[in-house]
């Protein structure tokens, strides 16, 4: 017999195989998930979950699709949390500290409690990336927040009401667009294509009979 554990979904007890994740355990229990389930592989942040092990004090946040069930787990999913995304026109803003002050002024109310970092399902230094944002150091904020899946677990725990994933996202867009150096080879290639430099060549290869294409393909040189 496979090993079973007792878990509590929204307070109700179910016995489920111990090897399941919280997500598959809910399905085992009979739930048809509509909310709180997106990619099922740890990339989309849809399955934010909060739990406590019976008899223990600590509250944990996690991704339901990436976390194995444990005996005595009290589980509540957080399929939606009202984080607040501010809108802007990316071409009109610049990577200046002012932008954060205007769009996300609440980051300056951070009390340094570190609850966000403790809550992060991706083990990111969330408080740190918020600190970088405060200073207008967008590149560092972008780097530090890069693996964020926007599950919102940090925001759930933040006493200052900060929408951390949105702050990181803004920093990354500013970095990608304005701070990272231009790729000159890309600009050049786009211009070449627009000027028609490849038009004839591409037409020629499109016209080639299959056997000739096979020959070309099988003997093509492969960059080391």
């Amino acid at each position, binding site marked *: 017999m496979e090993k079973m554990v007792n878990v509590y979904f929204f307070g109700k007890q179910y016995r489920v195989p111990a090897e*399941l*994740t919280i997500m*598959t355990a809910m*399905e085992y*229990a*009979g*739930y*048809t*998930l*509509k*909310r709180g389930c*997106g*990619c*099922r*592989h*740890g*990339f*989309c942040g*849809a399955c934010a979950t909060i739990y406590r092990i019976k008899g223990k004090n600590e509250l944990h946040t996690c991704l339901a699709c*990436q*976390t*194995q069930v444990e005996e005595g787990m009290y589980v509540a999913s957080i399929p939606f949390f009202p984080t607040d*995304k501010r*809108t*802007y026109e*990316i071409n009109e803003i610049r990577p200046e500290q002012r932008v954060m002050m205007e769009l996300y002024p609440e980051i300056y109310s951070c009390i340094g409690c570190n609850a966000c970092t403790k809550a992060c399902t*991706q*083990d990111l230094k969330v408080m740190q990336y918020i600190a970088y944002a405060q200073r207008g150091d967008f590149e560092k904020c*972008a780097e530090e927040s*890069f*693996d964020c*899946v926007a599950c919102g677990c940090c925001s759930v725990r933040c006493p200052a009401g900060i929408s951390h994933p949105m702050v990181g*996202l803004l920093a*990354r867009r500013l970095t*990608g*667009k304005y701070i*990272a*150096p*231009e*790729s*000159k*080879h*890309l*600009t050049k*290639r*786009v211009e070449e*294509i*627009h000027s028609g430099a*490849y038009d004839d*060549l*591409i037409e020629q*290869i*499109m016209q080639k009979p299959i056997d000739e*294409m*096979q020959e*070309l*393909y*099988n003997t*093509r040189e492969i*960059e080391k």
Partner: protein
Amino acid sequence: MFTPEMMESVKKVEATRAERMAMEPRRMTAEEKDALLKEFHPDYKEEAFCEIKIGPNKGQKAPKELVHLLHSNSRLLADQVDLSKIDYDVDVLVIGGGGAGASAAIEAHEAGANVMIVTKLRIGDANTMMAEGGIQAADKENDSPVQHYLDAFGGGHFAARPELLKRLVMEAPDAIQWLNKFGVMFDKDEEGNMITTHGGGTSRKRMHACKDYSGAEIMRTLRDEVINRGIPVVEFTSAVELIKDSNGRVAGAVLLNMETDDYLVARAKTVVIATGGAGRMHYQNFPTSNHYGATADGLVLGYRVGAPLLYQDTIQYHPTGVAFPSQIYGALVTEKVRSLGAMLVNVDGEAFMHPLETRDVSAASIIRECTARGKGVTTPLGSGVWLDTPMIEEIGGPGTIEKRIPAMLRMYMNYDIDMRKLPILVYPTLHYQNGGLEIGGDGFTKVIDNLLVAGEAVGGIHGRNRLMGNSLLDIIVFGRNAGKAAAARAKDVELGEMNLNHVEEYAKELKEAGVETGDVSPLLLPKYARHER
């Protein structure tokens, strides 16, 4: 953690590592590949396919599970919907909030159209979000769109539609630039040169990446842009049927609120199907790397209004899905792990193939190793082969894994497997729908001139196999194109009276062919809930 038997095998992998690092396994010849595919690739397993009995692809084969959906009736045959009560009235309706849908919506918006996205889960709960490895574009000095064309055409077994492939490669650099201008953070060096690597089947290093969150970085940026522009996104709402008008065009879609089960009517002058793939159909019982909503809905919607499919019988099994531990069974191990140097190794520590063959060849080769050759490593759910990840740190230096493939490291660390020190176990996973609805170079389906398709729901761009990095590319190139074309066409469309007659005609055909399944389609969500009675 690994079982003692697995650890025995790990020792053999470690013992041969130094020797393997010094050599490059031979690539297979064209003949060897053909023979391997015929014998071991799931696409060649005849009993897994059956014939489509009605509609434009009548007489052709498709995976059984897909045929089942095509042989099922619309929900709307039983559930009546009043089409005169219109809930949304737009120029362009985009079905599906993944990368293709978001790109289409942004371009349609840019062109001044009144556009809306409807999507099954949340915007971004999509295969796009999960892409790890990267996106191709020929933008380096030693590369060209022509070389890209050759790689993709050969990799797809010379079956791609030339007019589609041309667009893919010629507009690739433009697509990268478009994304970069929205702020997508591509991996670059200090001078701004894109850091590019090989993917299976590429002859030039043209794989651009954003660490191993390439799709996530693209998707979250596009999603942010969609929201910034105020484009309406109706979430947790699926399209369950296209609506036609009295002139035989499409005129919108009937939507289903996934939470309340209420129907809604969206009228639109042009419709873009961007519903993505079909991994959750679990063809041949394979696990899948795909998101929860990947159930081939768009194919069913399109087919029911008469749009033909192309290459619906070719599926991509990604060679390296997780084989162990079971909690993440089927999840993707990005191809980049092999691009960075990890070899595929069998239970005896032998490198049984070149790690960068195309995906179909690699998948078939792993299946052969685990079946006919009996050289797989036994796991609780089957078997697998090793992917020798510690090689990456030896080749690229300590820290390479954390820097270049952090998502992979994190996924395994959750289960106390440190891939920097130990190899990982992989087996093919159902990954990508090579086929789909047929379109012309302009993005429209061939039979209905205001119905467009973009992204993974399209068939023909890649032929019968897709190279890594060409799908993220196609969703941007064809998504953008569809958005522009849909916005332009909407200006000329005068809609006639709306109807759902095709639903009844389809039912009649099914009945006449004697193949009704008794189920309804599209599927919308896989049936995972276990019910004891």
